[in-house]
């Protein structure tokens, strides 16, 4: 039953990514060219509503349905890993126009070559695991 709920949430997420065109390479290119408000509107409104929602849930001390506290693990402090990691991520995002969520959606939509991006992303994650101890965090 719970699995079905997660599957349904995923399906809605996939449809939202595809229908809002956030999964389209063209929209990501357009965003980095400041060619349209579209992507900024999507992310901006998601963050504003998300922020209001999360702050409200915290203020009301709402518990998750299973009785545990909400999964809002604070991120570790620091600058380097977020800035360097973020820039590396951004270079890839700009190059292939797909971030992890939309990757899965595009594979499902039948864009077979996205498997190459997904394969690369798994390799990249693996490289991070290998190099973790040597990187500034």
């Amino acid at each position, binding site marked *: 039953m*719970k699995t079905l709920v997660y599957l349904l949430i995923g399906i809605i997420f996939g449809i939202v990514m595809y229908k809002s065109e956030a999964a389209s390479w063209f929209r990501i290119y357009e965003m980095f060219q400041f060619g349209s408000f579209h992507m900024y509107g999507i992310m901006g409104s998601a963050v504003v509503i998300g922020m209001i929602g999360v702050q409200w849930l915290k203020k009301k001390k709402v518990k998750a349905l299973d009785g545990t506290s909400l999964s809002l693990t604070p991120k570790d402090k620091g600058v380097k890993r977020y800035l360097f990691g973020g820039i590396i991520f951004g270079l890839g995002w700009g190059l292939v126009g797909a971030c992890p969520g939309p990757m899965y959606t595009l594979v499902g939509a039948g864009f077979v070559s996205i498997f190459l991006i997904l394969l690369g992303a798994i390799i990249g994650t693996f490289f991070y695991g290998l190099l973790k101890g040597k990187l500034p965090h």
Partner: protein
Amino acid sequence: MNWIYEPWPWYIGGPAIAFIMLLLLIIGKQFGMSSNLRTMCSIGGAEKWSDFFNWDWKAQRWNLVVMLGAAIGGYLSYNFLSTNVVNINDALIPQLEAYGIFSADQTYMPTEIFALESLNLKTISILILGGILVGFGARYAGGCTSGHGISGLSNLQLPSLIAIVGFFIGGLVMVHLFYPLIF
């Protein structure tokens, strides 16, 4: 029935993403898509190579189900809910044509990069390299556009703001400085 195929404006897409994040939070989970990549590494036996993959990934199985759902959502959208044409700012079309991309306003993804007929050493290298950067960067930064961009910012996390600034620096550098060299 044509409205079914129309793309959604930002004011539908953005709030829907926030709704998904909040729904997961109430179920007891944190919205973040790139951790699935780490889970897939662990399933593939990567713990032999690095302790980073020796973690409680079984607790993340729910996220793999969300991932599977995201793929099904893509399948349903492509086949039943969309014309699969993205219209962008017309001013960008000549730029794209100069890069050899002529499919703007005709397809969902540029066929010159993503169609199977277009696969050659160059496009394959671009796709794999781009994927490596995304996967590596997401884990190094501890999250991607969903984990930092939506979950982290909504929880007012400064690290997430730094990561987002990084995402945009990287993307802008790629599109403005490297594209003329690559395409």
